[in-house]
């Protein structure tokens, strides 16, 4: 089914069954009310092109536990990924608590995309912490740490099932990450 350019009536025209079926029935079936199903409750509608809409569902993954890395290039942070059906763009928020064993050392989190699309993590959309003391107590996860978010509108996605995975890195020392949260609003 697809949307049809709406018929323009003229005086004394007979409105045929075919015209009804194309201009009324088929077009009504392309509307948000026709496409709404209880199974998709709380999904929202977005356009997918000219005269076409579809439902999308937000998703998020939250991990409270601590992970560490000494990698100076982005590496996966365990269990911090979310898979959603997207169009060609998605709004992504990442949040994490970050600390480092060394003073004045960069600790950063970004995300990569896999699945229908492959996009590498980048400093362009990272969150970071620097200029703090190194943690003094290795058993105190909230010592010398900062928690913050960043938003990124990811465009150029291939529509389909895309997975967004948080990754971390450090400038030096060992980075410690907790309370990691990734939220995706597919468009």
């Amino acid at each position, binding site marked *: 089914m697809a949307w049809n350019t709406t018929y323009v009536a003229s005086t004394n025209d007979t409105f045929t069954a075919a015209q009804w079926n194309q201009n009324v029935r088929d077009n009504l079936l392309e509307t948000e009310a026709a496409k709404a199903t209880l199974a998709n409750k709380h999904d929202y509608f977005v356009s997918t092109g000219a005269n076409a809409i579809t439902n999308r569902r937000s998703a998020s993954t939250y991990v409270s536990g601590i992970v560490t890395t000494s990698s100076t290039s982005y590496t996966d942070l365990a269990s911090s990924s979310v898979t959603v059906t997207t169009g060609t763009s998605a709004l992504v928020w990442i949040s994490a608590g970050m600390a480092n064993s060394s003073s004045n050392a960069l600790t950063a989190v970004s995300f990569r995309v896999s699945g229908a699309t492959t996009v590498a993590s980048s400093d362009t959309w990272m969150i970071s912490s620097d200029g703090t003391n190194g943690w003094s107590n290795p058993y105190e996860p909230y010592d010398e740490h900062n928690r*913050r978010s960043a938003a990124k509108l990811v465009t150029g996605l291939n529509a389909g099932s895309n997975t967004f995975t948080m990754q971390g890195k450090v400038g030096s020392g060992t980075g410690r990450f907790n309370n990691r949260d990734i939220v995706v609003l597919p468009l």
Partner: protein
Amino acid sequence: MAWTAPMTAVDGNLLTATEYNQHIRDNTLMLAPAIASAPGSIFVIDDNNRVVERQMGSSYVAGEDNIKIYQNTFKEVQQAGPMVTLRTGTRAIVSYACEMKNRVDNAQANASFEVSGATVIPPSNEYRLVHDALETDTWTRMSVTTRVTLNAGINTFRMKYHTGNRGPIHFRRREIVVLPL
């Protein structure tokens, strides 16, 4: 009002008033333009063949406030909030921002939010905003965004605050934005 699957017409049949009212009038009244009541709304699925309007909300408090001494549980500051009340489904994306500074070296400032109304969620360290800086008297503004699971209905989102192991901590330019789904 309820949605009816649009009928398939057959040549030679006359369209009755009942058919018009059911298939055109009533179905059209289920569409977003018919139920829209305010600018800036989004539309989400509520049931089979039913969408509902959702309005985003935000609240901002500009003025400076503080917690003078060590406070390890979240509390209100003198200028309450910011807070926003709106109708949600079972999900909302909540983003909040705050500018914070320490009045002593290497102290920690924390902000979070609570939910009340149809849902009760206490402010939590799990999704808090944390500023832990070496510098004294240096303002830093940042935000945190999370997605929460709710009971559908009228929910109020309100920011709250605590210090690290000492105070005073100062807060200003506080804002909370809620996208109900």
